[in-house]
């Protein structure tokens, strides 16, 4: 089957609607959240209609079926990521933000000889291109433990500056937490040297894969990383579901984060001990229907093939970058070729403020995002307080890119009147 965005779009009910007085919806905001195919929406509502019950608890048929469905979703995720330890390595959270906070808080709960216990003199390394979700939790963990935050800076072209890798990832570094693909620049970071250096000093590597897992094959075993997080809602899945993957032995050593039902082994009024991984990290009745929906989303993507999704997006990115080069006054924020680059394309157009540009694009049916894209330090480092971002996905095609380009030209005319 050849890759056809037009056919794919037929699986997504939202494309049957129009926006702004009958205009075709040109959705270029999948970097914020993706649209959902029928199969995902039906998996979630099917759970409620046919199998709804609390998992791991009730002694009845519905509870058995719900548990099966939920644990099957865990298996699907583990296979999608090629988790070496299987489904025990998959923890369901509410979004990637929670996954990263889970890690930071759990490390903060570590004491004594636990490998995750942090103290003054220890170091956590991030980069200047982090989303706030992979920056502030680590800032706060440093504040609580006395550890120090270090970071890779970003080159003017929007690449990680790895020239001083050994003095950024020092011998005292315990955690290296990086975004796999920048949600602003589209940059995909090269991991080999970073992982090698991190492991050489005994640090764990945490990957914020929010913008990579939805868009390209990600094999955690091959990448040799230690933890990874992504969000269901950016991966064709439901809202309210995220994933934390971690190596089994590391998850076993990591203290728990949220406390409550189903994560315990034994409880008295004054003390408690913990269940095994992954139950240890899933307190309370979980987001069952959403996990099932995420399973359906990953099945949908697997059927199309992540290699195919990625090639499609790279080709489309090349097409759009090429077209943008023709627009006078348009300045890219991020790499201007497709080498190690995904389909998040940020830009500025003359002195039209991104918020105004976005508003005009919206009036033409073109949905983009504007602002600092939750990466304010990056915006400051590049001296681009705000930009406009178009982000591509499997349901976009050249006509969407053409519509964007056409609307940008229109905006220049509209705001140039004065």
């Amino acid at each position, binding site marked *: 089957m050849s890759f056809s965005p037009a056919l794919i779009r037929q699986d997504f009910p939202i494309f049957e609607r129009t926006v*702004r007085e009958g205009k075709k919806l040109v959705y270029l905001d999948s970097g914020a959240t993706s649209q959902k195919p029928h199969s995902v929406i039906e998996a979630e509502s099917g759970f409620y209609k046919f199998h709804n019950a609390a998992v791991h608890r009730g002694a009845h048929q519905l509870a058995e079926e719900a548990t099966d469905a939920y644990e099957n979703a865990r298996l699907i995720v583990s296979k999608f990521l090629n988790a070496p330890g299987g489904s025990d390595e998959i923890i369901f959270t509410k979004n990637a933000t929670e996954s990263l906070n889970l890690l930071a808080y759990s490390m903060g709960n570590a004491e004594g000889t636990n490998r995750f216990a942090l103290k003054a003199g220890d170091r956590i390394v991030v980069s200047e291109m982090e989303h706030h979700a992979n920056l502030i939790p680590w800032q706060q963990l440093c504040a609580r433990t006395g550890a120090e935050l270090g970071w890779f800076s970003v080159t003017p072209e929007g690449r990680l500056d790895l020239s001083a890798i050994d003095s950024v990832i020092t011998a005292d570094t315990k955690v290296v937490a990086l975004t796999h693909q920048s949600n602003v620049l589209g940059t995909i970071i090269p991991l080999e040297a970073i992982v090698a250096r991190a492991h050489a000093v005994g640090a764990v590597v945490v990957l914020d894969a929010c913008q990579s897992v939805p868009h390209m094959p990600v094999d955690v075993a091959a990448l040799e990383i230690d933890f990874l997080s992504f969000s269901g809602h950016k991966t064709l899945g439901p809202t309210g579901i995220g994933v934390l993957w971690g190596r089994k032995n590391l998850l076993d050593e990591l203290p728990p984060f949220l406390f409550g039902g189903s994560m315990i082994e034994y409880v008295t009024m004054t003390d408690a001990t913990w269940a095994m991984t992954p139950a240890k990290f899933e307190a309370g009745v979980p987001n069952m229907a959403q996990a099932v929906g995420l399973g359906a989303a990953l099945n949908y993507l697997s059927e199309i093939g992540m290699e195919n999704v990625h090639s499609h997006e790279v080709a489309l990115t090349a097409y759009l970058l090429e077209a943008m080069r023709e627009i006078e006054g348009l300045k890219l924020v991020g790499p201007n070729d497709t080498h190690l680059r995904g389909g998040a394309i940020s830009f500025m157009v003359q002195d039209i403020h991104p918020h105004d540009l976005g508003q005009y694009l919206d009036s033409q049916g073109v949905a983009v995002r504007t602002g600092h894209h939750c990466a304010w330090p990056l915006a400051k480092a590049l001296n681009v307080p705000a930009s406009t971002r178009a982000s591509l996905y499997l349901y976009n095609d050249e006509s969407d890119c053409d519509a964007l380009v056409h609307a940008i030209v229109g905006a220049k005319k509209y705001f140039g009147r004065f």
Partner: protein
Amino acid sequence: MQLDSLYQEVILDHYKHPQHKGLSSNFAAQVSHVNASCGDEIILNINLEGDLISELTWDGQGCSISQASVSIMTDLLTGKTLDQAAIILKSFSDLMASKGTSAGDELVLEDAIAFAGVSKFPGRIKCSLLGWMAFKDAAIQAQSRK
């Protein structure tokens, strides 16, 4: 085109030619407000003579709506008493909350009625209020220091 109700000529005019921009060297109070969802920033200086707003100056960056709004606001409030300013602020806030159902009270708001169209765009109401919220804050601070 609905967009034209947002981008009134007077708004784009103030955006291109902002009034009272450039911070005064002395002030009774200085406040800095940001719109965290888009990164817009405004610093506002206020000077009082008794109950009279003798000077409002500002600096900042942001979209046409936020910049024009603070420009028009400083024009409008300079020379007014704090009580008058409170009435104007209330009238402007009500207009922003009107979801496009009000045209605004031109006697009170003067040029600021150009923002009536903004109230139909929920994503932009914060932009147009940024400067006004800074003013509210600055006025309280300046008064508490008297």
